[in-house]
């Protein structure tokens, strides 16, 4: 079964952190990437760089910012192949954002991602 872990982060979660603390968190993200079940992933730039596109009646509307105006924003994702939901949940709970004011959404794929 293929899943995406969509990582919602609190952009201010690490505001007061030292460089060492930041590196430790980054190392955790890297370690998850090393799990053999994790087949892909990516870290996104801050939400300030986001643009949102809508097309209505043939007219394209581009707005500055993310789709949903919420405190938590998508900061990255993992792709994984796991036996079942329990295995995916086990990886999801190791994602630092989950304990740092954010959350991880676990979504199964319809077809395996390329």
């Amino acid at each position, binding site marked *: *079964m293929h899943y995406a872990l969509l990582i919602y982060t609190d952009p201010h979660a690490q505001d007061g952190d030292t460089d060492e603390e930041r590196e430790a968190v980054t190392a955790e993200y890297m370690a998850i990437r090393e799990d053999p079940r994790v087949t892909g992933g990516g870290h996104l730039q801050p939400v300030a760089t986001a643009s949102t596109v809508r097309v209505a009646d043939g007219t394209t509307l581009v707005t500055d910012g993310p789709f949903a105006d919420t405190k938590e924003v998508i900061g990255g994702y993992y792709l994984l192949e796991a*036996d*079942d*939901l*329990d295995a995916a*949940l086990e990886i999801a709970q190791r994602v630092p954002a989950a304990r740092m004011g954010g959350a991880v959404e*676990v979504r*199964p794929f319809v077809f395996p991602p390329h």
Partner: protein
Amino acid sequence: MPSRCARSSSRRTDRDLVIDRDPEPALARIFREEWGRVLASLVGYLHDFDLAEDVAQAAFATAAERWPRDGVPDNPAGWLIRTARNDAIDQLRRRRTLRAKLSQLDRPSEVAPMDQELDRQLSGHSIRDERLELLFMCCHPALSQDAQVALTLRAVGGLSTQEIAACFLVAPEAMKRRLSRAKQKITGAAIPFRVPPDHLLPERLGVVLAVIYLVYNQGYAGRVDLATEAIRLGRILLALMPDEREVSGLLALMLAHDARRAARSDGDELVLLQDQDRSLWDAAQLAEARALADRAITGRGPYALQAAIAVLQTDAPVDWPQVAGLYAELADLTGSPVVQLNRAVAVAQAGRPQDALDLVDSLDRDRLDGYQYLHSTRAELLSRLDRRQEAQAAYARALELARDDRERRFLRRRLEELHGSQS
């Protein structure tokens, strides 16, 4: 057979359970007892909840037609499972043929081994009881609690969609959608059909116990049939996990409360525990609760503690200091203000009303202001301490919050008594 929630024969959906049709009482009983086991075996085998349910229903329908004529087979569950499996294999073969004709999407390798597997298993006669796997799947924490409850009653309890809808005062169509969404998530997200490994078991068992207790409490609140159903589920779970002390604890707790059912109300009026007519208690059921509670208490888990309390409260006289001690332990374990309130009542009963009031007043009054029992408990304690005006104010606040008619009448009586004793 225990009565179940209102059954209507006029509106029945096409997918509803055949056991609804009650071919005859003996058969209905077999169907009801075997449903969970048959469905569990089929879900484990087919890994497809919907298909399993479809073929199980068809097998029960066939049995309802044939058994009265040909007699009940020696192993009814085995017969039902084999019949349903044959049906499933036919359906899968037809689907495969159809799909092969329609598209190239399916790699044949995915289907061919399945056929062999099906055939191999079909020839075997041993049928493992997989209801525990089914129960843990239905109570997976990734499902909403509403869905967990509905699925458990449907899959393990064998209630029809209509019956469950009637139990929870939901339109049958809405309940059907709820069940169908839940099944879709089970399949779509690959919620596993298994007993969780040791490191997940305590948490997952907690969910199962919570679901059963929730069903029980729906019954306690008036729908007797659900209480009976919860006890039945508790018995099934205990048979499957005889060593789990919290399972014993939950069953003991439900049995102890249920044993006093007939004494809990007099006509429309609530009767407090100390005023109940003990001859109306079910002595055999209480004895069973006591034995289970004794077995459970070594685990000191929350259900075991509640069961011990429920059983102790049926003694005459009640050992209130011991009850208060158990409540203190339960309050530490759960951090629940409701438990703290109950602890205060026990402390008062043990002859220490001032300590009890201190306990109540140590709770977060702002957060609990909307909780009727905070005010009714304070009122009771204040009136015992002869602080009548404060007691009246607290009863009045409880009355504002009370919704249940019987409770409202009870609170009004207390208020009148206080007024009366003042004049």
